C-alpha cells in the first residue's frame, strides 16, 4: 500500500454529468439503502424511545406505568454525584488506556518490524490478548492473576518487595485500566505495524546515507509517516474503550464504592438495580449528547484520516 498524504488528490469519485438521469442517481443509491435503513431503525428508534422515556416518571417495580414528569429526570441526573463521577471516570479510563496502549503499540510495532528468529510466533503471542473473550480476561485477571493470596502477579513481584497486595481493593481503577490496556495494545500494534511496513525502504536508505542514525530517522521520518495510522488507532480504540463494560462488571462490580464505575456501568446499574427507566433514559440522553459533542471533535480528526483513506484509492 502506498500512502499518499497529498490532501489535494481528488477522491475516486466519478463526476456525475449534469442532467444525469434521476433513475441513475437512484440506482446508485439503492445498494446503500438496506444497510442504512437497518441501522437507522435499530439504533435510532431505541434512541427516540429513550428520549420519550426520559421525560417520563417510570419505575419498573412500581405499579401505574409511566407518566409525564418534564425535566425532573434531567435535574436528577445533573445533580447526581454518581453520574458526574462516572463521567469523569470514563474519561480518565478511556484517555489513559488509549494513550498507554498506543505508546506500547508503537513500541511493540517497532520491535516486531525487524526480522528476527521466531517473529511470526512472537506476533501470534502478542495478538492473543485481543482475541481473549473480554469477560474471560476480566475474570482471569481478577482471580488467578490479581488475587492477594494466590495471584500470579503478587508472586512475580515478590522479589521486588511487593507483599500480597489486594489489587482490586487498593488499586481498583488502575487494575481495570491495566486490563483494558492489555486487551487493546495488540490492536494498536497491528495498525502501527501496518504503517511501519508501508514506509518505502528507499526513503529510509536515503536517510541512512544522509547521516541519520536510528533515533533521528524515527523522529524525523517515521513518526510523521505514522501519524495518520496513530490517529486511526486512537479513533477506533477510543470508540471501543469508552464502552468497556465487562471488565468493570466482572472485576470490581464498579467498586470499591463507585471508584471504578464508568458510564456504561452506571447506566447498567440504573436500569438493573434502581429499576428507574426514566432516570436511566435521561442519563442515557445526556450521555449521547456528550458523546456527540466529543465525536464532532473526533470527526474533524477523522476527516483527515478519511482523506488519507481515500487518497489511498
Amino acid at each position, binding site marked *: 500500500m502506498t500512502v*499518499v*498524504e*497529498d490532501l*489535494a488528490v481528488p477522491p475516486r469519485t466519478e463526476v456525475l454529468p449534469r442532467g444525469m438521469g434521476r433513475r441513475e442517481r437512484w440506482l446508485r443509491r439503492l445498494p446503500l439503502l438496506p444497510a442504512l435503513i437497518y441501522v437507522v431503525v435499530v439504533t435510532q428508534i431505541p434512541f427516540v424511545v429513550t428520549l420519550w422515556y426520559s421525560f417520563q416518571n417510570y419505575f419498573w417495580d412500581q405499579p401505574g406505568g409511566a407518566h409525564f414528569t418534564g425535566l425532573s429526570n434531567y435535574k436528577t441526573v445533573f445533580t447526581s454525584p454518581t453520574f458526574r463521577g462516572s463521567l469523569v471516570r470514563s474519561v480518565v479510563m478511556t484517555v489513559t488506556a488509549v494513550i498507554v496502549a498506543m505508546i506500547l503499540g508503537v513500541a511493540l510495532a517497532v520491535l516486531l518490524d525487524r526480522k528476527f528468529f521466531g517473529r511470526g510466533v512472537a506476533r501470534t503471542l502478542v495478538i492473543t490478548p485481543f482475541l481473549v473473550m473480554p469477560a474471560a480476561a476480566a475474570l482471569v485477571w481478577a482471580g488467578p492473576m490479581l488475587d492477594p493470596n494466590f495471584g500470579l502477579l503478587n508472586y512475580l513481584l515478590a522479589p521486588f518487595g511487593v507483599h500480597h497486595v489486594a489489587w482490586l481493593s487498593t488499586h481498583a481503577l488502575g487494575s481495570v485500566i491495566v486490563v483494558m490496556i492489555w486487551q487493546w495494545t495488540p490492536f494498536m500494534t497491528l495498525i502501527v505495524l501496518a504503517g511501519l511496513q508501508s514506509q*518505502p525502504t*528507499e*526513503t529510509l*536508505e*536515503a*536517510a*541512512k*546515507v*544522509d*547521516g*541519520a*542514525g536510528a533515533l*533521528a530517522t524515527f523522529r*524525523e*521520518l517515521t513518526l*510523521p*509517516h505514522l501519524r495518520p495510522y496513530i490517529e486511526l488507532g486512537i479513533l477506533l480504540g477510543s470508540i471501543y474503550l469508552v464502552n468497556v463494560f465487562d471488565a468493570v462488571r466482572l472485576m470490581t462490580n464498579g467498586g470499591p464504592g463507585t471508584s471504578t464505575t464508568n458510564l456504561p456501568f452506571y447506566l447498567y446499574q440504573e436500569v438493573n438495580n434502581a429499576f428507574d427507566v426514566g432516570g436511566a433514559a435521561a442519563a442515557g440522553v445526556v450521555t449521547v449528547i456528550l458523546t456527540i459533542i466529543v465525536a464532532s471533535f473526533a470527526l474533524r480528526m477523522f476527516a483527515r484520516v478519511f482523506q488519507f483513506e481515500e487518497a489511498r484509492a
Partner: protein
Amino acid sequence: MANVRYLSATRVFSKGAPPAVDALDLDVKDGEFMVLVGPSGSGKTTALRMLAGLEPIDRGGVEIGERDVTQVPPKDRDIAMVFQNYALYPQKTVAENMGFALKMQHVPRADRDRRVREAARLLDLDEKLLDRKPKQLSGGQRQRVAMGRAIVREPKVFLMDEPLSNLDAKLRVQTRSQIAELQRRLGVTTVYVTHDQVEAMTMGHRVAVLREGRLQQCDTPRQLYDNPVNQFVAGFIGSPAMNLQTVPLTDGGVQLGGTTFPLPAAAGAAAKQAGLKELVIGIRPEHLHLADGSGELRGEVLLVEELGADALLHVRLAGAGDPVVARAEGRRPPAQGQGVTFHVQTDDVFAFHPVTGARLAG
C-alpha cells in the same frame, strides 16, 4: 574529492547462489565520471549499493580516497546518493529535504539555508519551490531536488542509481547533458548506474560494462566501441546493435553473404591457432556500406525503417543466417524486396570465439 576502488568486491545474496557481484576490481580516478552499465541482473545497482554501504560486502573490499570503508556505515563514508525513485522525504519541504543531511551534521541553520539556496540555484530550481512538498512537484523537479540533496553535502563521491529512468524521453535527453555539465563543473568523483548504453556512452569518462555480476570491460566509450573485448560488450555497446552471426571458417576467410570474406590478419591467425571450424562475426550496421551492385555481400531487403536522417535496412544475406541490420542514407533508401549489395572494410570486421565469446585478435 577522492578516488574509488573496488577490490575483488563480492556479494552473494543467498548461500549457494551465484554471486550478484563477482570479484569486482574497478579503479575510479579522482574527479572521474564512471558509468556502470549492463542489462538487468548484471549487478550494477548492487555494486553501487556496496559502495554506498547499503549492501554488505561478503568478500573483498572497497576504498574511498585510499581509505578502506568496507565496514564503515554509509553516513561516515562522505558520499551522497541519488536514488532511482528519488526517495524524497514526503513530509518535508524541498528545502528541508535538501538540508536534511546538513541538519544531521549539526550544521548551523544559516549555513544550511545558504548552501541549500546555492544548490537550488545551481540546479535551476525556483526559490518558490523550496517551501513545497515533494507531492506538489513534477517528476523533473523532484529529480532535481534529489540531485540538490546530494550536491548540498559536498561529498567525496556522488552515487547515482538510474536517476533518469523515471523521466520521459525528451526530459531525459535534456537532463542527461545537465548532469554531465554539472559534474564537469563540480569535479566530484561520480559513479553512475544505468541500463541505457546511450547514457553510458555520452556521459561517462569511462564506462564499466557488467554482466551477471562480472566486469566485462572498463574503458573509454571510444575504446569500448572500437575495441570491444568480447562478444557481449560488442553487442551491448552501439545502437543499433552490432550484427553478430556464427559463420563457418574456411581457408580464405569466412563464409558470409554468399562469398568468402577475408578476416583481419590477427583475427585469422588467432582462429587458426585455436583450431576453430567456425566463429562469430561482428559487423556494425554503420560499417555495412550500401554499394550499387559492386559490393561483396549480397542480400535482399526485408524491411526498411525510415528515421529521417538515416534509414535502417533489415537484410537477409545470401547463404542463410539471421537478418542483419544496415544503416543507409535516409534520402533514397532501397525498397522492400530489392536486392542489394554491401561493401565492408576488412578492419571493421570483428571475430569472436564461438564458445567463450572472447575477441579473436593478435
